[in-house]
């Protein structure tokens, strides 16, 4: 029963993919869209069934299908593990997934290759599910690489534009760098514990007496590198902003709600490994905090609506890693969920705006949309409040808990994080004001065609907005359903959230205050003083640095890409030629010898006979000397 249901859950989107690839074009756009959506809904329903099941049994469901890879000291099965974590993850993957599918039916309707789009989306969902329900690291790796592939395909969906293709390629390769780290981690774990299976691994670690902590820490670090790749942390974050080249639903689904959280999922999954490597946890915390700040600063000055959201995503992911770094896994998960709600909502909202403006993404050419696009505006406002951590919206609870944990563990990081969230509030409302308030700054033609998006687009917005608002309920500071639900996963309980004193309240107040400050600054700047961000040319000073993302891409190009290409050119032009010259050289030498040798063959009998006699004499004399 479970097996079949699990297979249904996994394979439904895959069937959707196959169907859309082969027949999508024939059955027409809407049909393929509907089928694509339905398959995901099926998975969602299946997930719900599992959720109910596990709520009563509290028993993780382990399913082993068949033996896949055979290594000397262990074998890897195709297997699923449906426990609290994976089901939770599935819940919002499939849930938000189906909403975004729904949204895309209308959003992508003008695209000739809509069926392909849905095929890819389905494929993505399939791989994401595989990643989540994997029972061992290698099956997780399948999903891990699979979602990377899908993001490649979807970023480069409009493949006629080579810039998009470059972005897609960049995303894939950056992910691959992470994947190498993940692989190394897998190798070490495999050779240390002779298993890649979560459950056996957990018991192995728990029981084993003499753990090689250093190797384990290396493994943990390698795995974290993998997480950095997927979840766009320093130093591998640069692909995510470029990934905005893809259609907006893709950004919402893959690059905000689901795929980018795979890193957090993996770390949470292997919490028992990371718990044993405190140094690595510190690194994670620091990286997370720094990332969140850096990304936030960049987001302050971006003018492309999606870019702002992208950097905000990076920044939020940073916060999640901060939490992971402190071993507060369920808090990170909590923020993942809330973030999924409001960030998806924001992206879809921006999508609807872009839709209304026929592809315009520059905030400087927007404004005053709240009149025409009421629903979009409201949903957008709600989720902006959520992300800025204003109570009682979902973001408030999750972010607040992260900050608290930070405060309890490391004040410095807490300061950084708080700064980041302050900036978050600022740039989100900057975006909100520039987009929806004041007068429209676009072309006349656009102005005349301004319209609220159709229901298919607004419905998901509404749902997500509601979730973004009330999402906090799942883990209220005092009694958290979530931490109770996830408790079986974690070895050591995290108690900070429970005893609730004055410090906590002050922190809460500070956080909220920060959010409000940010909002006010934005209000003063863009409503009162009615500023509009300067044209690219006019940007100067530190703002220019920020606007150009600290020139990180340029630096990477200079250091890595160019050097590799230069090396390649050098090898091709010099080393290769030299090597083959060396081989040909031998032949040339012999030929030359032959050429010289021909001169010996003078044709004169006298000379021939002379050599004859010479040879004769030398042989005879030699024999004499020998005797």
């Amino acid at each position, binding site marked *: 029963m479970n097996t079949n249901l699990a297979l249904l859950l996994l394979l439904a989107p895959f069937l959707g993919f196959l169907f859309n690839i082969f027949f999508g074009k024939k059955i027409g756009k809407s049909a393929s869209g509907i089928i694509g959506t339905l398959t995901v809904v099926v998975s969602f329903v299946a997930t719900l069934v599992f959720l109910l099941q596990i709520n009563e049994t509290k028993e993780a469901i382990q399913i082993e299908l068949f033996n896949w890879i*055979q290594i000397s000291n262990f074998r890897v099965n195709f297997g699923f593990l449906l426990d609290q974590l994976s089901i939770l993850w599935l819940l919002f993957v499939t849930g938000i997934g189906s909403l975004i599918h729904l949204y895309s039916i209308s959003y992508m309707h003008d695209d000739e290759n809509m069926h392909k789009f849905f095929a890819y989306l389905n494929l993505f969902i399939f791989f994401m599910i595989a990643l989540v329900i994997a029972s061992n690291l290698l099956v997780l790796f399948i999903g891990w690489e699979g979602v990377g592939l899908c993001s490649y395909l979807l970023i480069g969906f409009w493949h006629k534009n080579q810039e998009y293709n470059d972005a897609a390629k960049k995303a894939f390769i950056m992910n691959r760098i992470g994947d190498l780290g993940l692989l190394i981690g897998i190798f070490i774990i495999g050779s240390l514990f002779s298993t890649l299976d979560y459950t056996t691994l957990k018991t192995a670690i728990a029981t084993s007496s003499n753990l090689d902590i250093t190797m384990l820490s290396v493994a943990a670090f390698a795995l974290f590198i993998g997480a950095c790749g997927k979840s766009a942390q320093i130093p591998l974050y640069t692909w995510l902003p470029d990934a905005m080249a893809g259609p907006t639903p893709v950004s919402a689904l893959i690059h905000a709600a689901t795929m980018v959280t795979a890193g957090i999922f993996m770390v949470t999954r292997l919490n028992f490994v990371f718990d044993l490597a405190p140094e690595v946890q510190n690194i994670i915390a620091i990286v997370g905090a720094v990332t969140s700040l850096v990304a936030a600063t960049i987001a302050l000055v971006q003018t492309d609506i999606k870019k702002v959201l992208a950097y905000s995503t990076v920044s939020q992911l940073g916060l999640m890693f901060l939490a992971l770094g402190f071993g507060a896994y369920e808090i990170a998960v909590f923020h993942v969920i809330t973030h999924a709600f409001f960030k998806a909502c924001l992206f879809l909202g921006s999508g609807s705006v872009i839709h209304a403006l026929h592809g315009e993404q520059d905030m400087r050419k927007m404004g005053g949309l709240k009149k025409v696009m009421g629903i979009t505006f409201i949903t957008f406002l709600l989720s902006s409040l959520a992300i800025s951590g204003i109570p009682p919206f979902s973001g408030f609870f999750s972010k607040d808990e992260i900050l608290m944990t930070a405060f309890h563990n490391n004040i410095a990081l807490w300061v950084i994080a708080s700064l980041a969230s302050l900036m978050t509030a600022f740039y989100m409302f900057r975006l909100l004001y520039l987009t929806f308030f004041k007068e429209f700054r676009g072309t006349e033609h656009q102005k005349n065609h301004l319209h609220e998006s159709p229901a298919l687009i607004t419905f998901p917005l509404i749902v997500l907005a509601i979730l973004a608002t009330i999402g906090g309920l799942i883990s209220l500071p005092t009694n958290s359903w979530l931490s109770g639900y996830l408790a079986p996963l974690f070895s050591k309980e995290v108690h900070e959230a429970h005893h609730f004193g004055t410090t906590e309240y002050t922190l809460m107040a500070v956080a909220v205050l920060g959010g409000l400050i940010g909002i006010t600054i934005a209000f003063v700047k863009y409503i009162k003083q009615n500023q509009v961000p300067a044209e690219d040319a006019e940007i100067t000073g530190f703002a220019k640095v920020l606007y150009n993302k600290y020139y990180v891409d340029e630096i990477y190009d200079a250091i890595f890409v160019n050097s590799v290409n230069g090396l390649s050119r050098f090898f091709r032009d010099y080393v*290769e030629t030299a090597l083959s010259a060396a081989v040909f050289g031998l032949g040339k030498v012999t030929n030359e010898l032959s050429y010289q040798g021909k001169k010996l063959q003078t044709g004169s009998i006298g000379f021939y006979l002379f050599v004859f006699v010479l040879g004769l004499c030398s042989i005879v004399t030699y024999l004499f000397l020998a005797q």
Partner: protein
Amino acid sequence: MNVSVLLIILLVGSFATYFAGDKLASKVALLFSLFALGTSIALLNIYNAGENISCFKFWINNPSISYSLTADGLSIIMLLLTIALTPLIIYSSFGNEYKNAKSFYALILFMTFAMSGTFLASDGLLYYIFWELSLIPIYFIALIWGNGDTEERKKAVVKFFIYTLAGSLFMLIAFVYLYQKAGSFLIQDLYKLELSRMEQFWIFWAFFLAYAIKIPIIPFHTWQAKVYQKAPTVGTMLLSGIMLKMGLYSVLRWQLPLTPIAARTYLPILIGLGIAGVIYGSIVALRQKDLKKLLAYSSLAHVGLIAAGAYTLTIDGLRGAVLQMIAHGFVVVGLFFAAEIVYRRYETRTIADMGGIRTQAPKFASMFMILVLASVALPTTFNFVGEFTVLYSLSQINLWFALLGGTTIILGAYYMLKMYQQVMLGETNTKVFADVTSHEGLVLVIIIAVLFFFGLYPRPINELITPCLDQILRTINKIQ
């Protein structure tokens, strides 16, 4: 019924093809290759039933050389690779018109015959004879039906021939020397030898020369790119799909068991060379202007990894190497065929002249994409299984090896996707590009199917090869 039936079929096939005349040649060749495929599968069943399909006859009594073919898991799997790829390769060439087709296809079958022999022979000299025989047909195929400027082609092909021959002749000396010691060329007798360190080192390097040039391991690869580029695609497929596996197979079958001490002593150097090949090949591939040359360098990188795996002397390394050999065999044939498909339409192999194909040929685009992904070892493709196992074995030797070897994951993705982008993506090309014909499609689909099937279920192959590889490892460890 024993394996020599297979060889007979192929040999007869090659003559039959020649006498069938230019019209029928390709069909006859395909027929015979399929027949051979059927037979080999039948043989596989017999083997799995536990019966003996080896064959042994005395041939020359002094020096004692015997016609002895031994079929164990390793030989059979390599044999199957050869026999399975041949019909694909022949079928893939149906789109082209070859002048004097009868000799062309006859040579292909003859080469298959020779290569199968190499994989089966368990008498050192018989093995060497097949090894050399396989060189002649490819020489003529590349020389006569090759493309590009004749003079350059001649240079490349002759270099290739002399170079490889030079390598293998030293192997011959090694064999003769071993014969002096053992009084027989039979592999089991050679395995029994107790060679001194010194002898082992000499013999090891003699073998290494032969194999390093054939595989090729850097810095002995200089013949490769040019020949792959100049040879007709069919020839390139034979070379990269099967022939270079001969070298790797021989490492497992002959070099390591015969000279274990040397192998252990040089282990770091050899793995280092392999990995250097991976990195070097990938980097050089980045900036190739010619599609076939790019693929040539990519295959240099891949075999580098395989060689590294083989030289780890661990069961994982050997197993991974074999799996990767087969996977690479299929994927590289597929990629070269894709290049050929583009060539058929655009008459060019220069990457710069391509691009914007995907919009015109969605089917081809998707299949090509899958092949590209397989060659960068995306999980669920066969290549991942092999690459993972090899990298794991490397990590067991030293984590750094795994790390450096693992760069293939990154660099491979880089140059392959770059290539794909330049060849397929971008603004719709002005030149029309007809989508794949049914038979081109069939070839690609078969290859893809194989890659995915074994990518998800490599078990049958594992079970076939593992006992034999264990045996080899035992031989290695017993002696040292």
